[in-house]
């Protein structure tokens, strides 16, 4: 940072900033602390400390079933979203067809549209098609909604890519298919991995769409939701703490992947800015 203006100290602004951070982190800290509280949830200060909730958690079969379901759904959603988001990004980058701008808006719509609308619309489709609601319908919902994330991430990667290599490959007689596998995809590796990781995490946490599409089997958020409705249990604090740890681990990996291609901050913001305007940044 250079220049007289920006290097000025701003103690008030700094204090305000730290207060906002405190607000953002307060619930998370409470959650973690109370997952070790002997008297369960609430009360201050916690009277005693315990690992009881973690013990209960690890013995809780139904909860781990839902974790497994969530992992399956998330993996399949990544496959769908990348499998369609990759060609969608290539199409947006390199082709022109009638209705392209409608297509772009439609792909990105689930990013900004409240989950309830996408969830309900898909519910009506599946009911109309006489499909039973199950993990498959949830997966189709997640995969479809998250194509938006894959498309924006990979599109951003394509925009940064050096075209000369691809042109050289095609000029030297390699087939487009071969060029894609040997040149395009390796160049996009960081974007694809980052997108995959982001989609995986978003799917693990998704509830607004799943809420309308679940059958007999629950995903983890649905399982947590059904327990929350029955009342507060400290076991939820424990699983939440573990989920948080998992998220932080993922974000560390994700950040490393992103900094390899470009400054991570710009891309996250680009995804969000895109979501706001419906236009690839």
């Amino acid at each position, binding site marked *: 940072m250079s220049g007289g*203006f920006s290097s000025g100290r701003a103690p008030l602004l700094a204090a305000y900033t730290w207060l906002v951070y405190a607000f953002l982190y307060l619930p998370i800290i409470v959650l973690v602390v109370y997952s070790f509280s002997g008297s369960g949830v609430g009360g201050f200060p916690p009277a005693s400390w315990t690992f009881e909730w973690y013990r209960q958690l690890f013995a809780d079969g139904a909860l781990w079933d839902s974790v497994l379901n969530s992992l399956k759904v998330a993996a399949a959603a990544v496959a769908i979203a990348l499998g369609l988001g990759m060609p969608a990004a290539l*199409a947006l980058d390199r*082709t022109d067809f009638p209705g392209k701008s409608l297509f772009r808006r439609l*792909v990105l719509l689930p990013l*900004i549209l409240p989950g*309830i609308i996408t969830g309900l619309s898909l519910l009506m489709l599946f009911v109309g098609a006489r499909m039973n609601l199950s993990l498959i319908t949830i997966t189709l919902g997640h995969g479809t909604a998250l194509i938006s994330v894959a498309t924006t991430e990979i599109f951003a990667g394509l925009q940064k890519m050096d075209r000369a290599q691809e042109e050289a490959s095609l000029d030297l007689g390699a087939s487009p298919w071969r060029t894609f596998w040997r040149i395009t995809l390796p160049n996009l590796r960081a974007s694809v991995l980052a997108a995959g990781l982001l989609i995986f995490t978003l799917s693990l946490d998704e509830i607004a769409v799943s809420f309308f599409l679940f059958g007999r089997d629950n995903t983890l958020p649905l399982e947590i939701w059904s327990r929350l409705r029955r009342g507060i249990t400290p076991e939820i604090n424990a699983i939440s703490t573990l989920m*948080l740890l998992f998220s932080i681990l993922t974000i560390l990996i994700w*950040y490393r992947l992103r900094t390899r291609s470009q400054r991570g901050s710009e891309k996250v913001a680009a995804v969000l800015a895109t979501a706001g305007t419906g236009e690839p940044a």
Partner: protein
Amino acid sequence: MYSRAYKAAVAIPPIVWVTAFLLVPYAILFCYSFWSVSSIQTIVHHWNLQNYLELARNSLYRDVLFRSMRIAAAVTCFALLLGYPLAYYLSFHATTRKDLLYQLVIIPLWASYLVRGYAWKTILGTDGVLNGVLRFTHATDLLLAIQNSVNLHLAASHQITLVPLPFLLYSPFAVVLVLTHIYTPFVILPIYASLEHIPRNLVEASHDLGSSPWSTFRRVILPLSLPGVIAGATFAFVLTLGDFLAPLLVGGSSGIMISNIVVGLFGAAYNWPLGAAIAFFMMVIVMALLFTTERLEKRLKVS
């Protein structure tokens, strides 16, 4: 450079998929909104405007819709008030710790939505952490004193309770608080991005030409960061407007929002057509908003 076959191969699969799983479902939603439910609980495919007339006539829907918009507006304002100064500090004042501080904004974003809503429930509840802190610090004594002295002057029907603090959980206040917490990072990121894109020499020029820091902010930085503000605000407003989980978790009956009505109509009340009409109406509001903000942003970029 790319052959027709290549173009077809990349364009057709996503177009087909998106048509089948987004365009068609949205169209079905639209169709449902013109149908009705018979007395034996089956969907009647008879086209009419009854559902939309019901929306216009029944004040319950109007009131809840307006409440949802008020809550969404409040969340947007609070998120901007919390988010803008933080983004500004990060962009202009944080020096060596910039990257770390930026990561600190992202981490809460990765903590599950449900988990954060639930955490607020444990904080705000009657036996929650906040009331526990008040008891622990004996602030409850003060609150009790205030409660008793105020109640002396109030009619029996208007008595107030301050211990435990009653308005915390199961109120619109709680919904606004939780959703502000959830969407503030979403507001910070685009604002930060647009602040980072401001050429620093513009800021310095303004400073060198004798502008005070405040007028530099007002005439250079703020206008140039507006695209980020608009993107963040749109995000917060739209996602809050469609939220139904926070009201169920912490809203209570006075914190019901429009999506909760839709959920009810698709569940126990079994009136899918009316639910579809409300959902479609929400979609129209969202689209109109996106269209407007997109226009606004384009104009800002041009000027």
